[in-house]
């Protein structure tokens, strides 16, 4: 396997070089070694050979994950200037800052696969890559910040903890760091909702209303049902993914029901009931029409989110150009 430097010298992306330069017999050998490593639960590292489709699938998933962290700053940052106490304001600022940091780890992990942050951001801004559809919902009250922490971060953690054992080393390691911080945010979100639930009547209502609005979108974060999930099977074979969408969704529901009870809040699902024979909670049908609609760009905030992201990027262009020009003059790394 040629080094990254060699690829750079040849002016090709690693994946592209592998496609062009490797004769079929060698590829079969490499494929066998890759399959063996994955089967043995070994980590695939950036300079190891990997199938092009594995590389492409990881770039897609990690980029989407990074984009979600960045777009996900918006609904919460929406409340920074209105946070009702200085303690809550500090917690929220720290959280939004962590999200930018998570975006940075994840873009770095994606870059080990031969892409660049600029290229990925360009794909986000032009709509060629997606971010989690949950961030297309608006934060209408302060309680939404708590509900996002409890439910949205909770769903993200349920999804991401298995990714700490993902077959691709840089992604798995990024997930270890991300999950630690996310768990912290989730507890803070829960604690914030608890304060509201036990507060005045108006605060309790605010909390219940937020949970009513965020519950179903959170369940949708696990993706389409298993029989409609196009990438799932291949991702599980490659050990990028360890559990199916429906398995993870069920795990999340089972965790949330008792937490909602301790919060003194209800979940907006009349069909939610313990099923003794399955040992799980049964829950009502998800509105998949809404899910696909939001995914296609027709959610409440799709335009707003991407417009703000593009504007920040465009309005910041002169700053990035200045940093590059300064670095070129003075031979220093840019910010």
């Amino acid at each position, binding site marked *: 396997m040629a080094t990254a430097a060699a690829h750079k010298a040849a002016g090709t992306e690693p994946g592209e070089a592998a496609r062009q330069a490797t004769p079929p017999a060698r590829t079969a050998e490499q494929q066998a070694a890759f399959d063996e490593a994955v089967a043995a639960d070994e980590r695939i590292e950036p300079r190891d050979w990997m199938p092009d489709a594995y590389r492409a699938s990881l770039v897609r998933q990690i980029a989407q994950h990074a984009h979600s962290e*960045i777009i996900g700053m918006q609904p919460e940052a929406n409340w920074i200037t*209105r946070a009702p106490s200085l303690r*809550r304001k500090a917690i929220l600022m720290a959280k939004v800052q962590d999200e930018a940091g998570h975006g940075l780890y994840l873009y770095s992990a994606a870059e080990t696969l031969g892409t660049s942050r600029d290229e990925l951001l360009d794909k986000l801004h032009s709509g060629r890559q997606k971010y989690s559809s949950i961030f297309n919902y608006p934060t209408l009250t302060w309680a939404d910040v708590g509900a996002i922490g409890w439910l949205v971060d909770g769903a993200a953690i349920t999804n991401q903890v298995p990714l700490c054992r993902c077959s691709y080393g840089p992604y798995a390691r990024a997930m270890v760091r991300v999950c630690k911080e996310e768990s912290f945010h989730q507890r803070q979100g829960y604690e914030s909702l608890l304060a509201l639930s036990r507060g*005045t009547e108006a605060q309790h209502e605010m909390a219940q209303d937020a949970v009513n609005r965020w519950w179903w979108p959170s369940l949708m974060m696990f993706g389409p049902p298993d029989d409609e999930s196009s990438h799932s099977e291949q991702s599980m074979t490659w050990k990028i993914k360890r559990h199916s969408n429906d398995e993870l969704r069920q795990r999340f529901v089972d965790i949330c029901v008792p937490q909602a009870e301790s919060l003194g809040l209800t979940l907006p699902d009349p069909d939610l009931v313990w099923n003794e024979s399955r040992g799980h909670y049964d829950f009502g049908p998800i509105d998949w029409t809404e899910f696909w609609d939001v995914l296609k760009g027709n959610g409440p905030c799709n335009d707003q989110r991407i417009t703000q992201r593009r504007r920040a990027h465009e*309005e910041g262009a002169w700053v990035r150009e200045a940093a590059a020009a300064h670095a070129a003059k003075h031979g220093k790394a840019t*910010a």
Partner: protein
Amino acid sequence: MTAAPASLPTSGAAPTATPAPTPALPALALGDDALVLSHRLGEWAGHAPVLEEEVALANIALDLLGQARVLLSLAGDEDELAYLREERAFRNLQLVEQPNGDFAHTIARQLYFSTYQTLLYGQLASGDGEFAPLAAKAVKEVAYHQDHAEQWTLRLGDGTAESHDRMQRGLDALWRFTGEMFQPVAGLDVDCPALRESWTASVTAVIKRATLTVPDGPQTGAWTAGAGRQGLHTEPFGRMLAEMQHLHRSHPGASW
């Protein structure tokens, strides 16, 4: 946690005309500076020119909010002081309440203020007054803030023609608010007028290295001398407070 005493207005309904008395002026002055600038920097979240600056600006905002909480707690209840005082009872410098403008404007504000804060906290940390423990911790934070502002002043000043112009405009526009930093603060064990020389030397050196020009206008208008410290603010400040205080004031006596 934040149950408001009867002496403070707790809702929009008929607040008393006179702001609450302001004991512990130095704690309020320094605390309000940090609180208000932190709020302004918080407005950048999700709008920064590059991800690293999302992290850096939020980081600085958090440091300042931490300082504000300690200082306001020395003067009373931090949330009552932040959320239930009227504009006229705030004691922050007019400099820190100025709107963010573009990135260069924000950096100019950071350069002026962090240089001042470094000098001020440096003196407080070396004394044994009430603020010494806070200042000892804060000097490390403000040294980072100052370095961040200086590095960006250099990059923008000595970057492209556009960034040079913008940085110069930021420095020029905020210059008239800088004189207020050197007005004495009653009860504060720092000779504020004496900070002017070191401040000017430090800021001048950075501005010159950045190939920019030190603004030559007055550092105060007749009406701005010490004004923020006396509760006289600029128009954007009231709107900032309206946003900051709205939710807290809508739920009198609630805990969060």
